[in-house]
């Protein structure tokens, strides 16, 4: 492998590792479905690697990557228009712009969430853990718990609201 190629690879590695969570967050914001977001993320990651030689190093990596992801999302949505509820193009474009403006917020929100989780009761922590660690829908979690799905659904929604309020409160202080 040439030295030049290795340098490009290292650059890509560093940029990709630094921003991959934000990139996935951007994609998820537009498609709102975990499996779909993963599919788009996979395609997009390979595209980024291929196109990396064209990337202007004087500009930040994330907006460039999101630009490529945006078109991948649009392609994906076009091919799944019939089997998914999708936001219209206008809203997708608006959410894309909003998300790009708010990328700095994401890290702060995550840190606040980490703190807020510690304030939850143990049972609530376990319920959230069970749901998110397995990537289950709330209905799946309810089934596993042997409890009525509406009961679990209500409980988890309530916990999310509390966490949401907690995060907003922490960010405001």
């Amino acid at each position: 492998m040439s030295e030049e190629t290795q340098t490009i690879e290292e650059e890509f590695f560093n940029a990709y590792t630094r921003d991959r969570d934000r990139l996935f967050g951007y994609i998820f914001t537009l498609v709102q479905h975990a499996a779909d977001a993963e599919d788009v993320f996979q395609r997009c990651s390979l595209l980024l690697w291929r196109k990396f030689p064209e990337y202007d190093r004087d500009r930040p990596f994330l907006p460039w990557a999101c630009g490529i992801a945006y078109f991948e999302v649009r392609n994906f949505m076009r091919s799944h228009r019939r089997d998914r509820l999708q936001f219209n193009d206008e809203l997708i474009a608006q959410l894309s712009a909003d998300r790009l403006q708010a990328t700095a917020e994401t890290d702060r929100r995550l840190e606040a969430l980490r703190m807020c989780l510690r304030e939850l009761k143990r049972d609530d922590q376990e319920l959230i853990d069970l749901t998110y660690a397995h990537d289950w829908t709330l209905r799946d979690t309810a089934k596993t718990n042997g409890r009525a799905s509406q009961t679990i659904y209500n409980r988890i929604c309530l916990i999310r609201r509390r966490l949401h309020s907690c995060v907003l409160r922490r960010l405001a202080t």
Partner: protein
Amino acid sequence: MNEMNFNQSDLLKLIDHLLDQSISPEQHQRLQQVLLNDATARQEFLAYVDLHLGLRKLSCVTALPAIERAVPASTADAGRSQTVERVSLSRGLQAKPQAFIALPRYRMMALAACLLLMVGAGLFWTGFADRSTSHLPSNEAQPHASLAQTFRPVFLSQSASAKFFGELTPRDQASLDYDHEFVLTDGMIELQFPSGAEAILVAPAVFELASESRMLLSVGQCSVYAPPGAEGFVIDTPLANVVDLGTRFVVDVNQSGDAEVHVVEGEAEVITKRLETAAGTSQSRSLRLREREYSLLGSEGFASTRPGHFEPLPYQRQLPDRIVSFNAQEDSLGRASELRELTIQRGSVPVTYRVDDLIGVELIHYHAYSNAIMLTPEWPSGSPNSGASADFEFESTPDLSYLELDHHLCSGLINPAGQSTPLTRDPVFGGDAGSSSATTPGMAIRFRQPVINGPGPEVVVFELQLIVHPESGDRFHVSPLVFSEGLKSHTINSYDIDMRSPQSKELVPFRLYRCVQPPRSLAELKESSLYDGLVHSVRAKVLAVSIDLSNLGYAHGAAVNGLFFQDAADDKDAFDPVFIAGLPPTT
């Protein structure tokens, strides 16, 4: 902007439904309206989505940092059962680590792993992709105990002209994801399971890897070989499971889910599923099939099991003969220039040839489509009419060696003319001094020594294809130089390695030269004056195809002196050969 009043609680309810995939079309429409019309609602939406993503991230705290961490020693051994120690979200409070499988959503991380491996920085990552391919056995939530099982990787051992819907064709020896529906739209692939079982799938096929010894086959034809030790391998079709009891069998599932099973060797057991039908729930039944027995499986159950009732399905013992791969000299960006060696399956046997071992060709006729006739590597800087560089004397007439002698994959004499109907009689070409009138469109080559027809292909052709042109390559006809009893033309409709194949390579930059009039004979070609010679602005890839002389009607052992090539004239793009060679006789 038209600000719209929204109730925060209602908004969060809608987002909850959206994120949990339980939103109705009416709710979705309502959410869209709110978000479109209210910037504050969108901020709320982004914050709530971040909360959702944050919970996902924090609930798999070891999976994400694993990229930066060394692989645990227990996962370094390929092919072992691999588990990921996942720290519970509540670990900090409970100090209760759990052994967990990596769930399908971590395919994302597998992709990251692959990329890191690609960039050479992921040496410490071997094994993660395998861990990430673990499969959740069904759509239903499973208790923890059953989730603790993990699976070793299933490899795509090789492929032939394979295309997948919506994704790139994996390279040979790539491990495939569990719990992912693959749609094979073209070609064939061979899968290697950890148990030793092998499966060859023929397109169109839809399949999914459910475990180390179980594959879901919704549609398509699959030939299975289970050597000793791999008994118990299961093909799971919509209506029945076919259990391999140490055998070779082939199963073909049609679009309505009906299946046909044919046992070639050994035994297999077919177990129908319990089905809810209009007439009630059917009972599961099983049937053992022995060698040369067949079964048709429909929603009504078994149709027949005895030999003689059906034509046997074609059992695929291996992938077809083809160019498997080739190696070329590469520049610092990984772009191919000179061919070094190629691996070709001939008569079911893979053989690797160095380029110097191949039988070269000599151009004996050339009747072109257009005035764009010659490609050269970029290095001959300067053009005939603009003055050559100081260290390179450019000849202003075509250099036949670009097709005949050099091994560059970006040089050659291109755009031979053609016709839609293949030749049925001897082509006419004038030769060096012959007349140019009424010559046959196309190009003819003579092998520097006769090529002997044996098992499998004997000739290889590489074509340059611009990336904006059809990825399947340009169709062409190949014909005998002299027709005799039993000989015929053969049309190449697809390439062994086309633009979408993982083995296809991008080429180094090249120059395109033109002449005033398209030559209609070798004599005209040699007298043509070349101009232009600009580096082509569009990138190109190289495609490859092998030709079995038996397809032209040559008998086994026949010595073939040359061939005639014509573009198939099916579109505006002409065939661009950059390397043609014969293969030495098989020993």
